[in-house]
């Protein structure tokens, strides 16, 4: 495990603490960004925010689809008069 947390007691000046770049480039192996990573880091990393929003969006959509599938299964059971299965398995 690489430590990314700056010792704020020594270099912290209030405004530049744990999230400043002062510490990040010390002792950390630096690989040059290329390809997809370069895209993600462009525009001041705005695309990282887009990625995060998309992850949440797809997570919610995934959940909606699961609910939808449960509804469809229940509909089929009710129409055919088949006993409904365990509530947790639907």
């Amino acid at each position, binding site marked *: *495990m*690489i*430590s*990314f*947390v700056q010792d704020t007691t020594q270099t912290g000046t*209030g*405004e*530049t*603490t*744990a*999230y*400043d*770049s*002062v510490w*990040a*480039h010390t002792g*950390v*192996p*630096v*690989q040059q*960004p290329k390809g997809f*990573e370069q895209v*993600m*880091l462009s*525009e*001041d*990393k*705005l695309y*990282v*925010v887009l*990625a*995060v*929003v998309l*992850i*949440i969006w797809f*997570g*919610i959509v995934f*959940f*909606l689809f699961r*609910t939808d599938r*449960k*509804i469809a299964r*229940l509909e089929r*059971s*009710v129409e055919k008069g088949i*006993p*409904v299965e*365990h*509530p*947790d*398995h*639907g």
Partner: protein
Amino acid sequence: MARPGVNLKLYRNARVIVVVWMTAVLLAAFLLRIPRIHILEHTARNLYFHVPMWFTLMAGMIVSVYHSIRYLGTPDLVRDVRAAAAARVAVLFGLLGLTTGIVWAHYTWYQGTGLWWNFDPKQSMAAVELLIYGGYFVLRSTIDDPQKRARMAAVYNIFAFVTMPFLLYVLPRQMESLHPGAEGNPAFSQITAPIMRAVFYPAIIGFFGIFWLLYTQRVRLALIKQRALGDVEL
């Protein structure tokens, strides 16, 4: 209300409000100008998305454990349905919180290292917490008798809930972490621009709203299903 059913009128109105509200939050999240800070740059905006995931997990689990406790008081299966649905949606938000955190860290603090996971204490504890809740659903699926399942699940749920403050809030603050919190506030660090709170708090409310919609949908479905099962008590 005597029976803890679903208020459909409230649900339909809330649906509209949540959609409008979240649209405004999304616009503000991207359009509001924020001070530039190193490493984070625009990703500071993830405060509006990543952090509310965990607030929603916590809120959802409070809803879940509330219904579990109520079930143990009066064995009404609607309580069990609500506890399970709330936990399920809460876990969804937990997984989203974990995933967004991984992506966020990879392109900021871990940039240049190629790392996706570096055992940040809070992140690891959150993963453990989600596994504990995974156990809740495994337990549920192994018991067929509804009343017995509800009782066992309620007891386990209380145990799982009790571990959460320690795993997510107490322990990570004792260790070196990228997450703020050691200073006292779990969401903000000293360099979080005050203006960001104007979007952050509405974002939390909006995600609570989304949680409530997804949760209510599941509750409605489960109640219909239980009626179809012929459970006269419902």
